[in-house]
């Protein structure tokens, strides 16, 4: 029986529809036939978490098994948390409204380092012991996966085991393993289950390893303390996306969520090789879905959801080998049903105004491009592989076809960056405005310049790079702000303080577990939301452990250094990344391996996989 939250609580919190559930497509199972249950836990609010495709896929796949109940839970906003704690209510799932502690598994997705404090808070609210080592026999296994799993070390105090890589295959394996363990009467208890689970490929059980540090505080190494634990854990991937299930139905929320539309994943991975990009390294290799498969999925999803928009998602959708025919055919076939097609992002060099016009056929919105850096020098350093000419052609074509505003994404704080490179961002924005005047004969073009401060991530070419100091980031932001005081240019930038803490955790080690615990006890939550982030709180928690921000974020790491994340592998060779870093320092480009020669990242060989690009296949 579902338990509804008290009316007096729901009537006094913001956005009560976050806690409602009961959506179309949500899966409410008869628990008497369910053998294993998992709460898919998103460490942010409902409308953010509901937009996450990974959980939509896992929710669908796991619930195909009638003996498995996969349910959803989200972080309650702080007003709701206060009411829940005052009324001693536990955090539950939306489906069966059982507390998280009632589940066999609670699985978190690690999208972003600043969401880690919410993981601790959700465990606590769900009635689960926060520290893994203190967890009782009857408590759930707390598991985690997602992009940040490629450095899981800051979370090892709280997570029983990690799922490394794509979950479509390993998650059902895990459910089956749990079914048989429970059917046998849970031999060996929790420890017994971990002994079984460690034998699955792609599972990292952190308590089966010991770590050591050098005198200077750097990481010395990690060794298994259990003979079943592998030296390294290689990610799991789905080799052929056409052979695997993709949801043909979906949950349709009552209210508006961030991505309120069908998300159709057209391919996985990106081989452009941008040197700052974490996703571009950890999701390799590129594997496309066939156009026919996608069209079939699109039709089924429109029918099953009633949505009027399909977003063709991937890391770089314009790189899909059959994009133009796919869009053209979908737009034609779905016109009758008033369904439009959209693309989440466009690369400047593969931008086609014909495609842009077609996807805008039903509704018109602004265009967004990501040159990432202002000068050619910087774009070569990061291997972005686009030129000013590419950008001018793209915006020129857009302006000639009626667009009058563009948004440009940049980063600052990149390796080898000079003040000239920063000022080049302002020049580029001005040139875009001039292009508009040249084409239309009048002014009035609106340019939004959005600038993020660069956070070096593990398993990228820039994993050795020391992040710019806080003062340096602020100086650069101010310099750019002054240079962009121009009519019709809007300058947006991210708070430098959050990117520093993000950098600490991105390349942190196990010692940060104590920092995270202390900061959470001191009230840290929703750190990705500026109104809740407190730099002082984090700074204090870090220094209280005898650690320093500088050590993790700003220190330039040397060529010989062993990193705390090397035992959890996406398959990219360290030697390849080092070559890429050295090429970056001299501004040398590396070509996309999708259509050319292998660049030696090592992923295909290690995973026994290959690039699937339908143009190349023909």
């Amino acid at each position, binding site marked *: 029986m579902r338990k509804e939250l008290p009316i007096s609580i729901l009537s006094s919190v913001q956005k*009560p529809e976050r806690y409602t559930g009961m959506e179309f497509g949500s899966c409410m199972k008869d628990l008497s036939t369910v053998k294993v249950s998992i709460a898919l836990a998103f460490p942010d609010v409902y409308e953010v978490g509901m937009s996450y495709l990974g959980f939509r896929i896992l929710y669908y796949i796991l619930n195909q098994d009638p003996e498995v109940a996969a349910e959803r839970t989200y972080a309650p906003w702080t007003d709701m948390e206060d009411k829940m704690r005052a009324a001693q209510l536990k955090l539950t799932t939306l489906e069966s409204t059982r507390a998280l502690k009632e589940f066999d598994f609670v699985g978190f997705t690690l999208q972003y380092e600043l969401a880690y404090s919410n993981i601790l808070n959700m465990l606590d609210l769900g009635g689960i012991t926060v520290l893994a080592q203190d967890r009782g026999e009857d408590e759930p296994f707390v598991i985690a996966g997602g992009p940040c799993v490629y450095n899981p070390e800051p979370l090892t105090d709280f997570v029983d085991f990690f799922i490394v890589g794509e979950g479509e295959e390993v998650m059902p394996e895990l459910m089956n393993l749990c079914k048989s363990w429970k059917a046998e009467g849970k031999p060996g208890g929790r420890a017994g289950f971990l002994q079984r689970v460690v034998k699955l490929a792609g599972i990292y059980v952190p308590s089966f390893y010991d770590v050591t540090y050098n005198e200077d505080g750097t990481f010395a190494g990690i060794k298994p303390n259990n003979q079943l634990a592998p030296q390294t854990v290689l990610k799991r991937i789905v080799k052929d996306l056409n052979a695997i299930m993709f949801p043909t139905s979906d949950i*349709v929320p009552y209210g508006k969520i961030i991505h309120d539309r069908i998300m159709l994943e057209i391919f996985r991975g990106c081989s452009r090789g941008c040197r700052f990009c974490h996703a571009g390294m950890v999701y390799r290799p590129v594997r496309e879905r066939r156009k026919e498969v996608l069209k079939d999925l699109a039709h089924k999803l429109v029918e099953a959801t*009633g949505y009027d928009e399909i977003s063709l998602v991937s890391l770089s959708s314009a790189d899909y080998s059959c994009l133009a025919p796919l869009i053209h055919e979908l737009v034609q076939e779905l016109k009758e049903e008033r369904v439009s097609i959209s693309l989440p992002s466009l690369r400047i060099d593969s931008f086609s105004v014909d495609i842009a016009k077609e996807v805008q056929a039903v509704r018109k919105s602004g265009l967004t491009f990501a040159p990432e850096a202002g000068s050619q020098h910087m774009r070569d350093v990061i291997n972005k592989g686009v030129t000013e000419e590419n950008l001018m052609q793209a915006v020129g074509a857009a302006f000639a076809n009626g667009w009058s505003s563009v948004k440009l994404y940049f980063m600052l704080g990149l390796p080898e960056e000079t003040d000239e490179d920063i000022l080049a961002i302002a020049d580029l924005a001005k040139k875009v405005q001039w292009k508009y005047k040249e084409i239309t004969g009048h002014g009035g073009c609106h340019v939004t310049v959005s600038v993020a401060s660069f956070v070096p991530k593990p398993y990228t070419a820039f994993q050795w790079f020391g992040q710019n100091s806080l003062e340096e980031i602020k100086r650069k932001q101010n310099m750019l702000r002054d240079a962009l005081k121009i009519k019709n240019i809007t300058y947006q930038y991210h708070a430098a303080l959050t990117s520093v803490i993000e950098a600490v955790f991105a390349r942190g080690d196990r010692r940060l577990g104590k920092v995270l615990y202390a900061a959470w006890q001191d009230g840290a939550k929703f750190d990705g939301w500026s109104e809740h982030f407190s730099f002082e709180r984090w700074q204090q928690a870090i220094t209280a452990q005898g650690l320093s921000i500088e050590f993790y974020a700003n220190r330039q790491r040397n060529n010989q250094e062993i990193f705390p994340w090397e035992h959890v592998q996406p398959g990219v060779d360290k030697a390849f990344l080092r070559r890429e870093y050295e090429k970056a320092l001299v501004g040398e480009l590396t070509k996309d391996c999708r259509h050319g020669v292998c660049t030696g990242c090592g992923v295909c060989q290690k995973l026994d996989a290959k690039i699937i690009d339908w143009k190349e296949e023909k």
Partner: protein
Amino acid sequence: MQLTKETGIRFISHLEYAHTLERALCRAKLPVAYSEGFNPHMKFSLASALGVGVASQAEFAEVELAVPELDVQQAQEAIAQNLPWGIQIKAVDLVESTANKLMASAAGASYEVIVPCHRQQESVLAAYNKAESVIYKKPLPKKKGQFKTVEVKSFVPSIKGVFLESHVTLTFDILITATGSMKAVEVLQILQEQFCLDIDLPEADIRRINIYRLDKKGRKLPMLSANNH
């Protein structure tokens, strides 16, 4: 058609509710009519907006079809299959497009409220029912400190109540007139503030039980002729 808003989704807003129904009709592949223009929208309307927090056994929605005929039973099944867990369909009826709009024909709504109450206060309801005039100063949302004066008795002539140990169950009709209507929660506020009814307003469980039309003699008629069967 007559639909419900189950208690579990009572905090979904009116707009979200309407949007959810449109999507369900879309999934049900009903041959509905769309407006012309650049952004066509479904010719769809709800009879009377329900306040956030109020559950309902009787929401009435009207959608224009693009075809002259429809198997009503089949349509009802198709819609039922495509509604979310929080909405049920009770009845479907087919009328000529020349018939009066639902919105225009709704004459009143019946409510039931269960609310914690710590005293047996039958006298409060008797006082309300006897009063010739009850004035409510409704705050104007866009003008701070300004009020619109409403004669409550013209909308809610009488209120019935059954007092139990810790709760009272109130039932009343709120008329829908050319000048507007009132919210059930406003009626409760008036009872609390002007008649000293000792209730915990934030815990009030408010449910709309029905919406009705009136015939020429002032007798209640169901909204849908299907409701007669």
